[in-house]
């Protein structure tokens, strides 16, 4: 499965300020990737030296291509965001485990914070056949309206969409985790019927993990850490399990049961 590939950039689109979508050509990734998998991209410049991990955001098997969403937060992402069509990227992938499919009969809830939508969108497309839209809710959080990704696209999926922004400039005001918590509590339903998948900034996932633990939710979260090798060799990317052992985010994750990890 894991392979080192040279993929051509097919297109590059600026979705929002500092947020880009790159379409890359690869039959291998498009065929093998599962939601939650990521690719480990060589920046191909002198600095930074180390590869950078990015979730696989969508695949198009018919056309042998896949997409990543990329937010510019530092030097590596800045260089990668400037790759133009025709250039090639050296990548390792697909890497990592993937979201387990929620058991049938559950209500599926996806909780995305900012760039967290990247793998969740891929997951959503895979769940679409298995769950009817009325059984799917997407919570989408962002700092403010200008950083809100995919609201329109998500509406198109017919899944229920709940938006929240920190400053209230779009949707409800507040942290998406608070909105999520309020919402599931409000509904008063049997929480055992929920299947939650979440991805977003570390702080948000920490909240999700705490919520999942306190309510004993079926909840998977996809984590982000600094990675060196990306293939399980260096043990640099670990997260603490609640059994006291460390797990590698790159190959034991990036998807973990939110109840089984200890985030600081």
């Amino acid at each position, binding site marked *: 499965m*894991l392979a080192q590939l040279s993929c051509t950039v097919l297109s590059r689109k600026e979705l929002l300020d500092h947020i880009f979508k790159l379409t890359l050509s690869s039959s291998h990734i498009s065929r093998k990737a599962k939601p939650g998998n990521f690719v480990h991209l060589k920046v191909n410049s002198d600095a930074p030296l180390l590869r950078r991990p990015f979730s696989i955001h969508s695949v198009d098997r018919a056309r042998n291509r896949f997409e990543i969403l990329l937010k510019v937060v530092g030097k590596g992402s800045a260089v990668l965001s400037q790759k133009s069509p025709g250039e090639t990227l050296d990548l390792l992938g697909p890497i990592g485990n993937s979201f387990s499919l929620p058991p049938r009969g559950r209500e599926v809830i996806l909780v995305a914070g900012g760039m967290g939508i990247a793998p969740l969108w891929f997951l959503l497309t895979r769940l679409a056949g298995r769950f009817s839209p009325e059984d799917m809710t997407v919570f989408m959080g962002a700092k403010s309206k200008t950083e809100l990704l995919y609201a329109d696209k998500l509406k198109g999926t017919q899944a229920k969409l709940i938006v929240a922004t920190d400053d209230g400039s779009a949707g409800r005001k507040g942290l998406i985790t608070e909105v999520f918590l309020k919402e599931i509590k409000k509904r008063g339903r049997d929480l055992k019927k929920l299947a939650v998948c979440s991805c977003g900034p570390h702080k948000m996932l920490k909240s999700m993990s705490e919520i999942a633990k306190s309510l004993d939710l079926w909840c998977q979260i996809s984590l982000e850490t600094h990675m060196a090798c990306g293939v399980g060799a*260096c043990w*640099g*990317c670990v997260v603490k399990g609640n059994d006291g052992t460390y797990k590698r985010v790159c190959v034991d994750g990036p998807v973990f049961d939110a109840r089984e990890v200890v985030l600081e």
Partner: protein
Amino acid sequence: MKGRPDLSVKVAGVRFSNPVLVASGTFGYGEEYNALIDLSKLGGIITKSVTLKPREGNPPPRTVETPAGMLNAIGLTNVGVDRFIKQKLPFLRRLNTRTIVNVAGSTVDDYLKVVKRLNRCKGIDMLEINISCPNVKEGGLAFGARPESAYECIKQIRDHTSYPVIAKLSPNVTDIVQVACAAEEAGADAVSLINTLVGMAIDVEERKPVLANITGGLSGPAIKPVALAMVWKVAGAVRLPVIGIGGIFNVQDALEFILAGACMIQIGCANFVDPQTTVKIVDGLNRYLKERKIKRITDLVGGLRTG
């Protein structure tokens, strides 16, 4: 020149098909890279440091990138010698390459216990003794920091194993030559250098060290000049084979170490950047020798002209 140049090297009676090894801690137990490169093309694989008991290692964050390098404070995470033998060694044994087991411990007794268990195994070609890990008390830097303690540790191990023994040296010392000489006297069959330099990075926003362990070990191109100077000095001072480590990313780097006196080299964090690094270096050495009509790689070792 007809035929392929001879890249093979013999160290302490062990023949390696080429001088390119992977450095401890950067290549897991080999299997992690099995999907990415043909492991039989490597001169040999050096395992992640093995300790007596399994070790979870340090809390995260454990790595951070720095200019032309990285800091790590993994903390010798490993499965422990027993599980190593049961779960990891069989895979390595099946490979058509040399296996060097890197051993770490916090007391001489620890080291000896690990070594004794390894003594009973098949498929191990050599031991590399880590007396230089800067990230944990148990990593042996206590031994590697002084010639006397390095001598003591290596000597004990020497007396308790028939495997060839490589002493892996720390650069965080006033005079690495003294430590190398102590290892030589203690009966080491080779020395490898360098392990990482102690370093640190600070998150200015949070006003906290980036690494949970506060300090870590610096590796990568940044340390290459330091490693090269030490290899050159040690190679000039000991009769033992010297194995060069530190920021080797391409064939040019490899040749620098070989010319400085290293008969073999280890590739560390370059594996992270490009898993093909080792294979590319082997190919590059072949090409270099061929182009210059040099028959054997060993003809280049220590070939630096300083006059």
